[in-house]
């Protein structure tokens, strides 16, 4: 480790002309000389995929210790992370079930996913509960620029009926600040970029167009600050800083390309300005910024609603013109099941790209993935039958050392999903006595 005479503040920001502000990643220079190594913060992200998963493609074979010996189709893209993840079986969201409220499994399961309660069946006077990510954000959010970030890729409508009498607020949000206040996800990568590196102002399309015309990189605005900082850094930190700023520049380039492509593909499209038409590109842009936000400690808590429950998004990128949701009601027809399998595999392929970058991002003596807890999962297991038990759940990363990944752990049937949420809250330094329908934390011996 390069030792400097005076430690750089963990919250140093590169500032420049206009509204640009670029937070820094964790650098060696932020550790005071001769001090004990600083423990990196633990980050938590939930990535949610809708409409269940083909469970035949999900559960890997394991040995007597639970270690993975085989990766079925939906898990295959994640094989490189076999030692970095826990696959958790039999977690259940009872509050996603009908419980006398009739149809609407999609609306219920996403509404209850992080809130842990049975949401009110309504399109008007919505009622859920504060979600576990927001309980954490309320407690530790003051330590970072953003208490939490909410991202998504699909649909941000907050009103209307999205499933058999359930408000779109339930299907289109994961995070809830209170019983009645969901936190809508940011879909547009450009908007997210401006939040992360600007002053938070949301530009009009006209202002954006003008800005694009005279566009300079955000990094151009902070050149002077960057140069000044570099003089005080050792070679390792200079390399780290260079890599970090390059990653921001890469996101900018992707955004510019997406915006250019959008114009060429369909100038009249109603997609937000910076939303790429291509799923993988959109996913990559958002997760690249998630990485930067984690790396620079802008936030420690994120939710990412990859697509929303009941989505009928087509996946033409992989040759599937049919809607996702209709395919999942396959009634055991092989052609439809195959399409769902392809979509599931496509999703985990994108996830693998994100995980690879987290793992490649050094942080102290470790890496960003090791210091994170990434939950990837769905609110239904069998999307054909709308089952709310044995929810497909991955817990990836080491949580700064509190998790012992590399295994599949199957709990007893009906084990509440909220037990996982309680466990994660505890690992984030926010222990709670109860949450949703939890019966307690997951057996510590099982995950740590």
């Amino acid at each position, binding site marked *: 480790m390069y030792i400097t005479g005076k430690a750089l503040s963990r919250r140093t920001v590169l500032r420049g002309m206009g509204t640009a502000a670029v937070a820094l990643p964790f650098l060696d220079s932020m550790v005071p000389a001769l001090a004990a190594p600083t423990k990196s913060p633990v980050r938590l992200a939930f990535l949610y995929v809708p409409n269940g998963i083909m469970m035949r493609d999900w559960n890997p074979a394991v040995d007597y210790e639970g270690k993975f010996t085989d990766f079925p189709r939906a898990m295959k893209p994640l094989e490189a992370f076999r030692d970095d993840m826990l696959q958790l079986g039999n977690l259940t969201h009872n509050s996603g*079930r*009908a419980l006398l409220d009739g149809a609407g499994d999609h609306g219920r399961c996403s509404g209850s996913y992080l809130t842990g309660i049975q949401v009110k069946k309504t399109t008007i006077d919505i009622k859920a509960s504060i979600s576990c990510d927001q309980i954490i954000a309320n407690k530790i959010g003051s330590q970072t620029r953003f208490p939490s970030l909410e991202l998504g890729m699909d649909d941000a409508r907050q009103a209307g009926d999205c499933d058999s009498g359930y408000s779109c607020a339930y299907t289109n949000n994961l995070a809830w600040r209170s019983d009645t206040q969901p936190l809508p996800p940011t879909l547009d990568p450009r908007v997210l970029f401006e939040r992360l590196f600007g002053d938070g102002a949301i530009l009009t399309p006209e202002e954006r167009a003008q800005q694009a015309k005279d566009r300079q990189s955000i990094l151009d605005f902070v050149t002077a600050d960057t140069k000044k900082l570099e003089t005080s850094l050792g070679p390792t930190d200079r390399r780290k800083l260079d890599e970090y700023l390059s990653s921001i520049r890469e996101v900018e380039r992707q955004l510019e390309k997406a915006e250019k492509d959008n114009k060429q593909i369909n100038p009249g499209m109603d997609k937000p300005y910076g939303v790429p038409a291509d799923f993988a590109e959109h996913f990559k842009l958002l997760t690249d910024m998630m990485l930067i936000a984690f790396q620079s400690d802008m936030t420690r808590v994120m939710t990412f609603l990859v697509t929303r429950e009941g989505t009928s998004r087509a996946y033409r990128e992989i040759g599937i013109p049919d809607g996702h949701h209709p395919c999942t009601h396959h009634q055991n027809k092989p052609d439809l099941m195959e399409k769902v399998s392809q979509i599931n595999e496509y999703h985990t392929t994108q996830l693998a790209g994100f995980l690879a970058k987290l793992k490649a991002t050094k942080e102290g003596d470790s890496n960003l993935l090791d210091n994170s807890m990434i939950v990837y999962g769905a609110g239904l297991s069998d999307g054909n039958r709308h089952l709310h038990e044995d929810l497909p759940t991955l817990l990836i990363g080491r949580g700064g050392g509190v998790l012992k990944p590399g295994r599949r752990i199957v709990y007893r049937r009906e084990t509440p999903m909220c037990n996982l949420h309680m466990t994660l809250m505890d690992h984030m330094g926010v222990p709670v006595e109860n949450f949703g329908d939890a019966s307690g934390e997951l057996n510590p011996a099982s995950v740590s």
Partner: protein
Amino acid sequence: MQGRGVVKPPTGIAFDTDFGNDIDSFLTLAFLRSIAGKGTARVISVSISKANLKAAQAEDAITKFYEGPPPPGRGGAVGSPVGGNPDMVGLADNGKMANDTPILNLIVAKKDAEGKPAYPGSIAKLLDTAEPGLTIRNILLAQNDLNAVVVLDGPATSLVQLMGLYGVRPQITAKVKYLVAAIGSYPNGAVDAAIKNDIAAARKMFAEWPTPIIAVGSELGDALPYPATSIEKDFAWAVPSHPIVDAYKAFKPMPYDAPVPGMAAALYATYPDDGYFKLSEPGTITVLDDGRTRFTPGPGGKHRYLIADPAQKEKITALYTELVSAKPVPRAAFGRGRGGRGASGAGGRGASGAGGRGFLPVAPEPVANIPPPQE
């Protein structure tokens, strides 16, 4: 919360038992499954306080026997179980396995002429079961208000575990009409093994259970036993064998009449207003240090106990034997149908419907040849 626009289904019975410790638990399960097959009541959950995997396996096997072959097309339809997990059994897990009993060993191990399990089930390991408290809580939440009855036939361990779940007591109050507990001896009597096994749980249950409790004492079970003659003659249709007959004969040397307080509890839970039993005045049941129970009458007490009515003995015995020896009622396909797609409160253990794991294909049939009880 009540269901919207849905006809209230028959009473849902959550059955908790120390399955396999005596023949009463087997007979009570058979009685309840048969009752559910007739559509008179629903078995919404079964949970077992005896921490022994074979108990869950035997319970599962007997349930499957009474339900008959599985319905076709179960895997293809939309419609989640309204609150339970298909084929789920709650099983205590206190870290140490309770002793096997001969009746459990026999049901689990018996093979047919081809060497296959005579009474097949689907439970292979502890992970195929759930915690009893969660099993009961999750299914109760899927019931219409005051349309569930809890039947206890064994130690109160599972119910105390249920009461320990966060926020559950108001939910129990909303959903459960009363608890019928076959435990103790009334008004004062001998030590009950079910209480002795977990005195603390029995005390807590009688002191804190949030609904009225109807206790069924061992004296009632003794007064209204299941007759050995039924085992010898009523199951001739079951070829090559019947699990209840096998278990009955394995439990004690034949012939013997079996005390069945659990069956009495199940009978009262199903037909509370039909006059099969007399009810004590209200009062309070306390548990003494040695495991005996004491009933203290008093207005406002939340406890009562059942009293045998000699005039009803013949009818009760006929009902017991007819139901336990009844042939399985075939189940209909999973999915739409009676109480189909996500039906509110109409499902039980398994599919969406009115008959436990499955649901009835036809209108409930009356129990034949059983005269109504005399008031």
